[in-house]
């Protein structure tokens, strides 16, 4: 990596400067409250290693690196950031936690840190400080970051999963926008299928899109993996209704969705094979930056998925969630770095560079210029205000994480869609698997 640093640094610095230039005026808008930063004397000669999921949009990586580099220079320490694939981050975290060696900080996904609560540092002090300063943490951040009344991790942002669709195609099918009810949504998908411009939603083991769709489907029918007390409640009439609905919906999908990973729908949509899907902002962003695809981006609209039987759109944004391992020899430096990254000077440029890919966990950043630059992406602004999380409705425990990591919900849906199982059988099987994860703790 050493030979790359210089080049990356220059790129990253350039990115940061560009971002800062556009966001310079906007930074003033981030309102802060007085708060005392926790005293974290940085260990002398500290070296930090951080592991992060790979970027979906290039500036994410560039600005992130630049921010870390600034912290390193300001404190005379060394910070190294490694980026790994989305599917690999869970296992890398698992190995790190299990072996007690490896990076000091891992930015994982969602409730991941809860799986390793015994192996990571308490972050209550910095979380309280940041919460005070930036107008409080949003509901999803509270759900994923806290264990009881203490903070075990710092959520950095969440990627929402709204419906993303081609305006012209919907019009051609006779729709102005995505209907808000199940029946209308099904009619839309059937109409799209008829004009041979079908919809498609990931049913493969995709960390982001697969979970987003399966969760939306089950939740929007009132089903849930667990009840409020944390008992497994997946085998319910609501779930079966959702799966019955999926059976019809799936007939309208573009072929191949059973094997879709996080990237597949991006590609199918950009290739014009699929005209309605569910995704983060990356798809829109990459098309916007590609002259050949710009016309699709301009034709694209992003709106929340249907509410279904609920009052709010059920979506648990895929959340970046940073944890500091107890085996780190420089816990203060690690905590200080995370705090540093969440401060306006670093966080706002990063937020803006991502153009909404990661949506803020702290209320004050809702005022960021990110959300006013392009009206299309404003749908992502309140991603973390959603009262849904993986493993909903029960409290987050190891079981919720393990059940998500094992794709219990996704595979239940896929089993029905592929015709491998009836809705009843699939729900029962999901219950059996989930019970095993939730029972032991």
């Amino acid at each position, binding site marked *: 990596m050493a030979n790359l640093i210089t080049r990356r640094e220059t790129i990253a610095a350039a990115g940061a400067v560009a971002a800062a230039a556009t966001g310079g005026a906007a930074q003033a808008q981030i309102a802060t409250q007085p708060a005392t930063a926790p005293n974290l004397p940085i260990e002398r000669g500290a070296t930090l290693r951080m592991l992060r999921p790979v970027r979906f949009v290039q500036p994410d990586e560039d600005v992130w690196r630049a921010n870390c580099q600034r912290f390193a220079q300001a404190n005379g320490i060394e910070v190294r950031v490694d980026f*790994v694939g989305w599917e690999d981050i869970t296992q890398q975290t698992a190995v790190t936690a299990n072996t007690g060696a490896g990076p000091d900080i891992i930015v994982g996904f969602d409730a991941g840190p809860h799986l390793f609560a015994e192996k990571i540092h308490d972050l209550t002090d910095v979380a309280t400080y940041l919460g005070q300063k930036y107008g409080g943490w949003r509901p999803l951040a509270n759900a994923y970051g806290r264990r009881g009344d203490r903070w075990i991790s710092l959520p950095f942002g969440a990627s929402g999963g709204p419906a993303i669709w081609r305006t012209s195609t919907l019009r051609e099918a006779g729709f102005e926008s995505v209907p808000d009810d199940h029946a209308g949504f099904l009619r839309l998908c059937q109409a799209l299928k008829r004009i041979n411009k079908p919809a498609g939603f990931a049913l493969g083991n995709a960390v982001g899109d697969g979970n987003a769709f399966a969760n939306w489907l089950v939740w929007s029918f009132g089903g849930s993996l667990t009840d409020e007390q944390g008992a497994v409640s997946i085998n319910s009439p609501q779930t079966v209704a959702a799966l019955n609905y999926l059976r019809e919906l799936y007939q309208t999908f573009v072929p191949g969705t059973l094997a879709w990973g996080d990237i597949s729908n991006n590609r199918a949509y950009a290739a014009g094979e699929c005209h309605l899907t569910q995704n983060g902002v990356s798809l829109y962003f990459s098309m916007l930056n590609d002259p050949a695809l710009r016309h699709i981006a301009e034709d694209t609209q992003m709106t929340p998925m249907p509410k279904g039987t609920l009052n709010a759109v059920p979506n648990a944004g895929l959340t970046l969630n940073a944890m500091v391992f107890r085996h780190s020899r420089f816990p203060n430096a690690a905590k200080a770095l995370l705090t540093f990254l969440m401060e306006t000077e670093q966080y706002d440029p990063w937020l803006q560079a991502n153009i909404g890919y990661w949506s803020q966990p702290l209320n004050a950043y809702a005022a960021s210029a990110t959300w006013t630059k392009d009206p299309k992406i404003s749908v992502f602004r309140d991603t973390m205000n959603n009262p849904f999380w993986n493993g909903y409705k029960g409290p987050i425990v190891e079981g919720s994480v393990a059940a998500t990591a094992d794709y219990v919900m996704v595979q239940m849906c896929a089993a029905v869609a592929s015709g491998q199982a009836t809705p009843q059988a699939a729900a029962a099987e999901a219950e059996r698997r989930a019970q095993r994860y939730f029972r032991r703790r």
Partner: protein
Amino acid sequence: MTDAAAAPQSNTATAAPEMLSWDSKSRRVVMLYVPLACFLLILLFPFYWMTVTAFKPNAELYDYATHNPFWITSPTLDHIRHLLFNTSYPHWLWTTMLVSIAATFLSLLSSTLAAYAIQRLRFRGSQYVGLAIYLAYLVPPSILFIPLATMVVRLGLFDTPFALILTYPTFLVPFCTWLLIGYFKSIPYELEECALIDGASRLQILRQITLPLAIPGLISAGIFSFTLSWNEFIYALAFIQSSENKTVPVAILTELVTGDVYQWGALMAGSLLGSLPVAIFYSFFVDYYVSSLTGAVKE
């Protein structure tokens, strides 16, 4: 092409062992050259495709309508350049080389001694020790890597090349020992007996008589070990974390598959460059490698 392939299929069993018959030329073409060409085509096509993709600009890569996918209109070194300068590829290559050579050396040393003890020193139960070592080859790494990871950490080797250098012999030593036992077996006992009578010590015999005669075996075992080490995946996936310490196979799968698009050009360039060193190395020792596949079979 498909017709030609199908035709000899039905006759092959009868025709193939015909070593001594003098077939007509056309029969020979249909029975021998056509199937052989098909085999070659299928076995080599993925490499051709890898190479073509590695040098194709992205514009051609995803546009089969205007560009013939089998050829490159304007070859580019972009993917290779990306690999060499934007990723840690040189570092991965270096690590893989280091690990493979060290693991091979360690395995050769211990298996030569073990094979010598089992085959030449012949003690009560020696064949059982041989069998036990052979059986060790049956233990799949997928069982071992979880407990091994905890051990590797306790020994302070996590995320270091030593984690791999010390664990690779678990699957190399059984094979090498087994191979070398075969080679030692083929060296006449009389040679050693004469030397013993002449008053040479057993160590001298090993060093001056047995080992030199077993050199082809050592080379074979060495090449096999090197290739297996180069190819190893699960341990490297589990014991190495930082991106610059990864081995080539793991790094290409985990580091080059980035978020927004599969960068097929870079992936194929990585696969090509990752295959080249071992392919070149192998091309020098082809015959030894072949004989390592088949133990003591001599040609």
